[in-house]
């Protein structure tokens, strides 16, 4: 305690010495003028590093793993087996079934969502009282977690006490309750219905954004030329909406193709394998059957198909900016 008074003197001097050195250093940094490209490198480096670790390295590792056996099992001992995992994958009937389920699910639900979403976007693309309630109505399904959505609809579709059954019976569509999720023909249809319910809202939101960016004067000009509403839609709205439609399609097709939560929570991939999508199948062989090589092969196939779909969309729908 007694020493404390004595030691403050030199201590403070030392600290203030550090401070001034620090300040001088800071001054130097403040004067430092990075060139634009140096600054860009500095700002982009963390993102690129992140993307490398979390996106590119894993993809390459998955491809590597698909050519090996015993991959990621505790010892990580593995042997190169060439395309054997792919051979086993392609010999598995369940794989082809899952591929078919995923393609059906994706290429039925996405077009339906696009058409319904466009209709809703056109409906909501004007000023009216209660617009915000309507927007909340389309935001709500979008924000709902997929797995919780699956749980909700599993109850609504319940084979005995489901409200869907009740409504259909009351409307006279069916005579008695039907277990939609327990029959292979209707389970996939129900799953498509559920995803359309949820994601049409997202489609509508994106398209609404695109619609609001079309300048009004184009419609005025079209009206002056005596164009009907249909002609206005076909000749003004649709062409100018094309880039937005492309964005919306990519935003929806890729997630639909990778559906996991919905089949997991709605009917668990069943009955049988009627709603087993590709990712559900790949997840199952990887983490339940612990066949990591084959799982990696399935993941690689999924990657190539997803990239193929993206490429297809971009090449068929992309147009250099017209305006």
């Amino acid at each position: 305690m007694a020493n404390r008074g004595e030691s403050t003197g030199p201590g403070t001097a030392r600290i203030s010495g550090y401070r001034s050195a620090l300040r001088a250093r800071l001054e130097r940094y403040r004067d430092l003028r990075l060139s634009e490209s140096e600054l860009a490198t500095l700002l982009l480096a963390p993102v690129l590093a992140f993307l490398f670790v979390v996106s590119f390295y894993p993809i390459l590792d998955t491809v590597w793993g698909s050519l090996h056996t015993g991959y990621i099992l505790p010892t990580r001992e593995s042997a190169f087996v060439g395309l054997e995992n792919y051979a086993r994958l392609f010999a598995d009937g369940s794989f082809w079934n899952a591929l078919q389920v995923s393609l059906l699910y994706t290429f039925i639900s996405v077009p339906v969502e696009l058409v319904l979403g466009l209709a809703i976007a056109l409906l909501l693309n004007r000023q009216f009282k209660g617009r915000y309630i309507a927007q909340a109505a389309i935001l709500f399904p979008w924000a709902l977690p997929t797995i919780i959505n699956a749980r909700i609809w599993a109850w609504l579709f319940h084979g005995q006490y489901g409200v869907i059954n009740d409504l259909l019976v009351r409307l006279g569509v069916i005579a008695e309750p039907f277990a939609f999720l327990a029959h292979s023909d209707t389970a996939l249809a129900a799953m498509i219905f559920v995803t359309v319910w949820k994601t049409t809202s997202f489609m509508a939101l994106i398209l609404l954004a695109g619609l609001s960016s079309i300048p009004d004067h184009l419609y005025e000009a079209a009206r002056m030329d005596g164009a009907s509403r249909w002609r206005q839609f076909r000749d003004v709205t649709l062409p100018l909406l094309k880039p937005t439609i492309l964005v919306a399609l990519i935003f929806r097709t890729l997630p639909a193709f990778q559906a996991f939560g919905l089949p997991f929570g709605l009917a668990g991939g069943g009955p049988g394998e009627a709603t087993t999508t590709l990712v559900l199948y790949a997840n199952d062989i990887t983490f339940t059957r612990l066949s990591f090589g084959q799982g990696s092969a399935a993941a690689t196939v999924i990657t190539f198909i997803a990239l193929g779909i993206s490429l297809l969309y971009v090449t068929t729908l992309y147009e250099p900016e017209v305006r």
Partner: protein
Amino acid sequence: MSVIDRSRFDWKSLQSVGEKLGFYGSVAALCLVSFFPIVWIFLTSIKPASQIVQFPVQYLPTEVTLANYQTAINEAPFFRYLVNSAIVAGGTAIVAVLLGALAGYALSRLEFDYKVPVLLIILFSAMLPFFSRLIPLFQLARQTGLLNDYLGLILPYSAFQLPFAVWIFQAYFKELPDSLEEAGLMDGLSRIGVLFRIILPVSAPAMATAAIIVFIYAWNEFLFALTFMTQDSMRTITVGIALYQGEYTFPWATISAAVFLSIVPLILFMVLFQRKIVEGLTASVGKS
């Protein structure tokens, strides 16, 4: 007289009344279809067990009970799940927004040679399937001790959402006037100074939008949350609800209560930020 009356009959306004009816009718139908499932879940959650298993369905409960909520909360660490989700989603939003803003600034307002390759890399990474990254990342998380750790989800989630965040910021920064930066440079700020003192403070709207959407993504994600969080106490709400099982029969009443409880924060969130989300999506897509 009657002839004159008929000719004066305002068909136009009748037509517009019909149009209005049709319009508001469609909007009402849209709202009904959107909200019906959750209303139904709510109704189920407050019914006594006997009224849930009935056919024809009993629409409104004749007796209201909170027993299902009690069971839901007692049988699983429900609030723990909610807190886990909030930490993961909040952390993801912070990381993705910060890194996304810096990269978005570079891509929209700086000149450099390799801009196109960087844009292509970011676009390409956005198209890669999540599952194809799951196995190596699972292994990586296991080696680095990030399984059952919040960071184990925050890091991959923010990386997955980075392309989107970068895109939002890039669209926003493009619209800012050059004079803003020039004024800062004239005042003796460096480029970095301009970025941190001027650009980032005025980009609060873009930050809010990106943060909200990234937050919702991280809150909702299921595949990684299911795989990376194996301890019950670390589960997020989506996984917690997905794994909710009864001992004998599937407890729909309890699940309905759990589902509805889990959606309450979401509903509050939507009420608070609804305009922000719509405006944000509108702005970013409109400028793409």
